[in-house]
């Protein structure tokens, strides 16, 4: 049974169409991340699910019941906001229990649920404090507690970690993952952070310009991006995209002499003379020994940046540029030419005009 189903959702503000037909069905216990840059429509979609905005067309079903026109409180959802949205005049316990209080839940039952939630989130010692007396991370825990305490059918998260610093964000990410694994809740989570998406999601919907660019598991999104946009959006540093042309059994890169062998899986979809974009992830590249057979890219190293766990190398390949993530102790000289290689399975091909993967059909 679908916990949440979104059917052909459209949203227009005057002449501007921010959602152009979104279809997603979510099974119970799934963690769906809506991933995309600012203005792609992901928060609008979340607000439509929550009932904070009405769609211009389409339907939203929660527990196989259409909730169009239903008040947010009657949708069996809970929401966690980017700004935490805690009630500043109430203490933590009352903030967490407010939804139950509004639903006229008996005081004893409410108190028990609040204590249980606080224990789960390790904020029992904060129950008497006001939000202004809490750190960012503690406030976010309270906001999550407020959602958890009601045990709704679907949890909605609107960029909940964006206001936290990098270290805290990582801790809270792990915490959210732990909670999801423990409680098996159904979650729709909006973020523009691809690391959050990759680490938390059971499925990711990459959104762009009001449409879903690709919907799949994190592995599918990362290993088999359906479009150039997805390939560029997911992964840090982003996938190298090189202009090339097929030559029958090879790929001639523009602006340099290198010809890459065409992996057999592309032979039927890449006839000779077709303009394509070649995608190779930076982490798939490694330095080639002189006698390495197969694909080779000879590029002049321009910049080397040691991030700690890896050496991020930017190199010029004719008129184009590639980035490679190499082991930290790799000996490289800036200004000199080095040969890079990769497994043929790491090669992606996209149509130069449409930007779609040649394997996506």
């Amino acid at each position, binding site marked *: 049974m679908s916990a949440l189903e979104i059917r052909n959702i459209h949203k227009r503000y005057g002449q501007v169409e921010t959602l152009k037909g979104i279809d997603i069905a979510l099974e119970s216990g799934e963690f769906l991340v809506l991933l995309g840059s600012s203005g792609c429509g992901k928060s609008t979609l979340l607000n439509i699910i929550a009932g*904070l905005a009405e769609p211009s067309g389409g339907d939203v079903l929660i527990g196989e019941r259409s909730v169009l026109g239903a008040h947010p409180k009657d949708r069996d959802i809970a929401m966690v906001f980017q700004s*935490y949205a805690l*009630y500043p005049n109430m203490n933590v316990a009352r903030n967490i229990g407010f939804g139950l209080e*509004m639903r006229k839940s008996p005081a004893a039952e409410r108190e028990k649920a609040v204590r249980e939630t606080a224990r789960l989130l390790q904020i029992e010692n904060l129950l008497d404090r006001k939000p202004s007396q809490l750190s960012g991370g503690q406030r976010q825990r309270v906001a999550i507690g*407020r959602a958890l305490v009601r045990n709704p059918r679907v949890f909605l998260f609107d960029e909940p970690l964006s206001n936290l610093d990098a270290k805290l964000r990582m801790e809270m990410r792990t915490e959210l993952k732990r909670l999801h694994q423990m409680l098996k809740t159904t979650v729709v989570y909006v973020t523009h952070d691809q690391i959050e998406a990759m680490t938390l999601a059971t499925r990711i919907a990459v959104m762009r310009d009001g449409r879903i660019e690709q919907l799949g598991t994190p592995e599918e999104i990362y290993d088999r991006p359906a479009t150039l946009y997805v390939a560029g959006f997911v992964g840090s540093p982003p996938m190298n995209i090189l202009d090339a042309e097929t030559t029958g059994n090879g790929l001639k890169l523009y602006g340099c002499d290198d010809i890459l062998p065409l992996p057999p899986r592309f032979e039927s979809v890449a006839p000779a003379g077709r303009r394509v974009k070649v995608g190779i992830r930076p982490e798939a590249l490694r330095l080639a020994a002189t006698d390495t057979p197969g694909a080779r890219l000879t590029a002049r190293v321009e910049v080397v940046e040691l991030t700690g766990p890896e050496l991020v190398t930017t190199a010029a390949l004719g008129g184009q540029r590639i980035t490679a993530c190499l082991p930290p102790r790799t000996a490289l000289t800036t200004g000199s030419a080095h040969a890079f290689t990769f497994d043929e399975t790491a090669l992606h091909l996209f149509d130069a005009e449409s930007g779609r993967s040649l394997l996506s059909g």
Partner: protein
Amino acid sequence: MSGTWISTRAWLLMLPLLAVMIAVIGWPLVDTVRLSFTDAKLVGTEGSFVGTENFTRMLTGSNFWRALVITTLFAIVSVAAEMVLGVLAALLLNQQFRGRTALRALMILPWALPTVVNATLWRLIYNPEYGSLNAALTQLGLLDSYRSWLGEPGSALIALIVADCWKNFPLVALIALAALQAVPRDITAASLVDGAGPFNRFRFVSMPYLAGPLLVALVLRTIEAFKVFDIIWVMTRGGPANSTRTLSILVYQEAFSFQRAGSGASLALIVTLLVTLLAVAYAALLRKAAGAA
């Protein structure tokens, strides 16, 4: 060296303002204190020292206490009504609807009018012969015959309070609207998801943001209402039968109508003291509210 120069320059720059303040506030205040201990008339005699006689006479006479009751009644009722109306108007103007911007601009109009213009308008509305209030109420069947709203002791103060509210509730509404717009959208959305209805949303979401600014409005309006003079002077001159004679009107009558500068000054000082006490109490309240926030 440079510190001294900055300090000297600051004093030099402030000097003209200080001179004006001493001339128009400082000196009259000192002179009022001096006058309050004399039996000076407004014209003709400098008066001689009478000690605290003026104060005792004022505080033991019935005029002062009656005026104090009228002033307090006027201040409490008009400010309370302005607060309620202002918040209701702000809640309405905070909703999304067509023509909201025009309505917001229109609402400021009564407050922007000079008090004398407002008072004259309301005198016309209350006019016993051709006033629109009488016309409207008789046409609606709520009134049998025309009444002199400002001419009857029973209705004059209420009529004044209505006129004062009409002029001043927009200020409260503006302050409340600004506060309501500061309520984060996410908190309102969270309360919707939590299941709070309109009343609970007002109580738990809007009120914490409204309380501080409303307290400021309350302080300003109470002090102003306590000092009220112009609207009453234009509409009733304290009548009929002194039923709208507030403290400020009493001070004016004592000092200028009866030309008793000495006792007028003592009364003015008593009013100043009362307003100062109010201001101090409110300042403490504001500090407490700020501390709680």
